[in-house]
């Protein structure tokens, strides 16, 4: 087997096996260097996989040499390639910028363990996206969850501990619900491979356990993905986590759970269960709309900068679910694109927050007066990413908002009211981004704060600006992610092989 | 003939062993305080284990299973009483006074507080 054929396995193995090695790198800074090398290597593998998928070959890899239903198969198609790019890209970028910010928040002797946990999180998320076996997704979901609990609990802030404990309880309940759902499907179909499950689920006579399994899996993954009513753990966990951890998790952790939800619901339950499409829309649409409206309004009145952005993440997850709930090609394309664009916008915003944290101990909006004069570059990057979050034309956010609106119009009678919801929530986004801009630019510096020019360290600033420019680049030339998103929509809903 | 006799003996042993476990259980429920209840519990640990395992060994005759049963019995007979001793000691150390003990044991030296 040539090197190219091993790529799906290497995508998970490279970060996973480098985690134990990094634990051994005690001398200062070496742990960070090792972790960044592994992160960049996995990003390179993801790019190679995306290129292979773009020119038409979906890679299937039989793990251990055993064929699909008997062994575990890995499969990289358009949808997983897009999410892989997103996960490894966010991981590598956050790692590149992490050294200065982590040095301030975590003692040197604990850093090797911290970076090992980071790589385990990256490997777990990549393992979920690459896997085509239901139970294997559970195992890697546990790895990524444990790693994110460790990362969030790492910070100096004592309030991180109760927040991450709540996240642990709700995350474990979500994963166990998912396990019950997979168990019930396995009980009725006798197989764990996703494609095999899809083939055999049609001729199951007793439908009750399958419907209960669908309920369990959807609720479990909604808990993991912080969908509206089940999102209570997200704001506190992301606010009190170390700054670079928030950058990494906000960009990709919840999206992978949404990826599994969309893949399960459109691949395994969809075309065989008679009226399941209607049930999924009946469940997902109201939650998405509620999530968008409530989370955006809460974000408008939020005082702390990081909590504001975390609450806005819940609203953006609502957008992704809204696109998926149309269960149409346009809908899935819109939700896949919004996964990509939101990661860019929110990743950039939290990077800017990490830069601000260098000179402003307290991140409440009232305390951020005069930041623009002291840190002009950081605030400029923050504004660019904010515009992309709103969806101003010319930025990445606009592309996905536009696709969402076209998908809403196509979805028939409810179309116009949904377009109204999207526009109203975009206006709310304008309001809370403007509140940040007003605090940074027009608010007077508090009395004793010095206003000398003091920018964030170069390394962190460069990565922040790189992500901001990427926001604009993918706003003007979106054909790479768009091609992958269209491919995944055709695959999931269009019934393409 | 020998087979029948062996079977009868092992059934008797198993029945008596079962009865010992039952007595231990009832003792554990009915007896008033902690220290007396340990006596009942240790009955199942020692006497019942011995009877039941010898009964089972007779059933399995001369085979590897008999050796394994003997090893398990030895392990149980070793750990059971030690666990009961450690339990009682920990209770005494944490200040649970046995009934009617006025702090002066027979030999005149004070039992540890």
């Amino acid at each position, binding site marked *: 087997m040539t090197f190219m054929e091993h790529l799906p396995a290497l995508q998970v193995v490279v970060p996973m*096996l480098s985690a*134990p090695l990094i634990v051994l790198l005690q001398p200062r800074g070496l742990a960070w260097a090792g972790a960044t090398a592994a992160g960049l290597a996995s990003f390179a593998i993801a790019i190679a996989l995306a290129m292979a998928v773009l020119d038409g070959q979906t890679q299937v890899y039989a793990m251990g*040499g055993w064929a699909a239903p008997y062994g575990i198969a890995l499969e990289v198609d358009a949808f997983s390639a897009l999410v892989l790019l997103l996960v490894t890209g966010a991981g590598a970028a956050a790692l590149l910028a992490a050294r200065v910010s982590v040095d301030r928040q975590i*003692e040197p002797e604990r850093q090797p363990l911290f970076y090992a946990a980071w790589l385990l999180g990256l490997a777990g998320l990549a*393992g979920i996206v690459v896997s085509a076996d239901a139970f294997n997704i559970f195992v890697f979901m546990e790895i990524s969850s*444990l790693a994110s609990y460790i990362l969030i609990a790492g910070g100096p802030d004592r309030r991180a501990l109760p927040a991450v404990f709540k996240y642990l309880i709700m995350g474990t309940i979500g994963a166990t619900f998912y396990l019950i759902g997979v168990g019930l499907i396995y009980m009725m*179909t006798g197989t764990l491979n996703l494609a095999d499950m899809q083939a055999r689920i049609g001729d199951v006579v007793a439908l009750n356990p399958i419907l*209960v399994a669908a309920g369990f899996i959807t609720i479990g993954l909604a808990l993991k993905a912080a969908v509206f009513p089940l999102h209570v753990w997200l704001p506190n966990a992301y606010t009190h986590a170390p700054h670079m951890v928030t950058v990494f998790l906000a960009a990709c952790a919840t999206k992978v759970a949404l990826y599994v939800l969309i893949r399960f619901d459109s691949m395994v339950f969809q075309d065989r269960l008679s009226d399941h499409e209607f049930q999924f829309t009946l469940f997902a649409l109201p939650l998405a709309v509620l999530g968008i409206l409530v989370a955006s309004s809460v974000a408008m009145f939020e005082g702390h900068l990081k909590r504001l952005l975390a609450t806005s993440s819940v609203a953006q997850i609502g957008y992704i679910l809204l696109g998926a709930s149309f269960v149409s090609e346009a809908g899935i394309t819109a939700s896949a694109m919004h996964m990509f664009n939101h990661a860019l916008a929110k990743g950039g915003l939290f990077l800017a927050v990490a830069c601000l944290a260098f000179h402003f101990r307290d991140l409440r909006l009232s305390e951020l007066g005069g930041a623009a004069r002291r840190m002009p570059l950081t605030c400029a990057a923050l504004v660019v990413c904010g515009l992309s979050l709103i969806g101003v034309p010319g930025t990445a956010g606009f592309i996905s908002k536009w696709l969402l609106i076209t998908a809403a119009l196509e979805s028939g009678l409810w179309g116009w009211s949904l377009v109204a919801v999207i526009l109203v929530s975009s206006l709310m986004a304008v309001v809370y981004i403007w509140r940040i801009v007003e605090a940074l630019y027009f608010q007077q510096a508090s009395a004793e704060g010095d206003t000398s020019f003091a920018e964030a360290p170069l390394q962190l600033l460069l990565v922040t600006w790189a992500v901001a420019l990427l926001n604009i680049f993918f706003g003007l030339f979106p054909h790479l992610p768009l091609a992958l998103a269209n491919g995944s929509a055709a695959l999931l809903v269009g019934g393409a092989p | 003939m020998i087979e029948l006799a062996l079977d009868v003996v092992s059934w008797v042993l198993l029945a008596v062993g079962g009865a010992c476990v039952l007595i231990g259980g009832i003792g554990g429920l009915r007896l008033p305080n902690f220290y007396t209840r340990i006596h009942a519990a240790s009955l199942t640990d020692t006497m019942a284990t011995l009877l039941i395992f010898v009964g089972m060994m007779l059933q399995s005759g001369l085979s590897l299973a008999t050796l394994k049963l003997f090893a398990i019995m030895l392990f149980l007979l070793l750990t059971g009483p*030690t666990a009961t001793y450690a339990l009682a000691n920990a209770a005494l150390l944490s200040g649970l006074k046995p009934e009617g003990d006025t702090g002066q044991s027979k030999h005149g030296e004070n039992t540890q507080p």
Partner: protein
Amino acid sequence: MIYVFALFLLTLLVITAVAIVRTENLFVAVMLTSIFSLLMAANFFILDAADVALTEAAVGAGVTTVIFLSALALTGDWEKPRPGGRTVALGTVGVLAMLLIYASFDKPRLGDPEAPVHQHVAPWYLEKTPEYMDIPNVVTAILSSFRGYDTLGEVFVVFAACIGVLFILGVKPARQTAAAPQPVSGLRHHLIPQVVGRLLVPFIVLFGLYVQFHGEYGPGGGFQAGAIIATGVILYALLEGEAEALRAVPRSVLLALVVGGALLYGAVGVVCMLKGGAFLDYSVLAADPVFGQQLGILVIEAGVGMAVCGALLSIFHAFAARESMT
């Protein structure tokens, strides 16, 4: 026949679960959890799951109770009762129970041979294991070779838990007591448990090694062996004192065990890749594929055993060291 046992043990299970939730004293709750795990292990054994029963007993009853007790020693052991309405919680939970019981009538009955579970993938495993691996224990064959990637993920879950506990408990506690932390020796002046302990610990560790290398022929394998050996060393630590146990198995050895076990498992996979097979495809390891499979299974089970033993011990030492600090 199994219905009688199942009926009796499962009812006891439900009673224990309710008792755990109702009791106020946390020590009682932890002891009842240990009994709950033992009952669960007995249930598994009746349902023909010998490997799982051994794991549940060793990991569930053994190590979980030790970790709970060492955590309880650092926090309070009484729970403050919560007055007020229970109706909301009982309501939601009751609805879920009704839903599940309603859905249970379409499921195949216990032990029904025509159930779809026994038709599709399982017979292939039972038929192909003697052919590809020629080892009696099919569960170990699936665990380590057919679904070896799951077990690799599993080893890294244990590895994540180990570095997580070391990372979270790596922070020195704020209220450092002025006096030098007096060495916490186990049951200090209790001769009998120490003598019996010294007699038993070698046999426990020996039994752990037996379970490790007997994994292909009978119930056993890496997880169970790691847990049993860890329980043996924890018994030694409880009796002789934590400092003594650290002298016997120092922290650096533990970290080496965890990292070595995880890397050994991954290295076997990478070697299979280099020799031309897929990741974790052991048949390329040796000339004869069957011998290659057996070699691969033996080596990765050793890796799993090392990782689990090292992880559980370093978690125990992280908690125990915390006691001596505060």
